């Protein structure tokens, strides 16, 4: 289930609707310090169901909603949609025959959150079920955050088990 597209709206510094399409091979995201590169990684972690604000470098989950800038007022909602290719039919029923699956997550300043699969409202549980056994999700070795590369192998032997268990 490769990533075909990520669309962000009101997520962190991506206040305008922004769409990034990815193809096969190696993609490099570049730009000056503070321009929003790591925010794209946060958007992907978030839409896949991440529940810990700390993991997204915030204190509370509302920190992912655009907080305003010199020229723009804060927004009231953050929304990210990730479109995954399902060419090899790895998704569980009833999604196995779809060539693409779009997952959307929304968060309002009120604290209310919404999840959608192919624009149809669902629960977080449905998203977790969708990704079960497909390898998508925040597996220990598929996302390496900025600054983490040095400390990874210093992890305690117990933490390294997770890596092996994902494979076992």
């Amino acid at each position, binding site marked *: 289930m490769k*990533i075909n597209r990520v669309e962000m709206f009101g997520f962190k*510094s*991506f*206040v*305008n609707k*922004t769409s*990034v399409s*990815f*193809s*096969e*091979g*190696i*993609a*490099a*995201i*570049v*730009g*000056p310090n*503070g*321009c*929003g*590169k*790591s*925010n*794209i*990684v946060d958007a*992907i972690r978030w839409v896949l169901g991440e529940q810990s604000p700390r993991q997204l470098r915030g204190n509370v989950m509302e920190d992912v909603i655009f907080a*305003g*800038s*010199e*020229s*723009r007022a804060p927004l009231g909602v953050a929304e990210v949609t990730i479109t*995954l290719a399902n060419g090899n039919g790895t998704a569980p029923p009833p999604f196995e025959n779809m060539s693409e699956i779009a997952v959307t997550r929304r968060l309002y300043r009120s604290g209310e959150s919404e999840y959608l699969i192919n624009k149809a409202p669902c629960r977080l549980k449905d998203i977790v079920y969708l990704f079960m056994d*497909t*390898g*998508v999700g925040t*597996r220990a*070795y*598929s*996302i*390496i*955050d*900025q600054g*983490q*590369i*040095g400390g*990874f*192998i*210093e992890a*305690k*032997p*117990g933490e*390294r*088990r997770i*890596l*092996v*268990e*994902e*494979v*076992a």
Partner: protein
Amino acid sequence: SKERVHEAIKAINEKLSLTFPTLFGGGQAELELTDPDDPLGAGIELYVQLPGKKLTNLNLLSGGEKALATLALLFAVYMVKPSPFCLLDEVDAPLDEANTERFNSMLKEIGREAQIILITHNQKVMEAADVLYGVTMEEKGISKLLSVRLN
């Protein structure tokens, strides 16, 4: 189950014997159960030997060596059980020029099968990518995606 843990470690070590010498130009590394009789409970040690150096405790490795050893382990795990995509955020920052070259060639190898999305400030690593995405903040505080340049 017990067998699956032993098998997973064996499979990762097999790939590690490829990725580690490729990234370090020699040497070896291996995962081992802290207690082989208790595969479901024991922790897992990583033993690393750099080319020409003694077997050392992971803490004594330099910043660049730790990053490279981590990449060797990640790529090995990736070869055993590929995940649909791989996101790497400035993992090349501690590497010197020679190790960046080796990282690049490994990246290209893995990139043939897997989808890799990486963030970097290093010109040399950008050259290894098939597609470049530029992010900018022309309007302060607001991120914008620039057009994509194909390499």
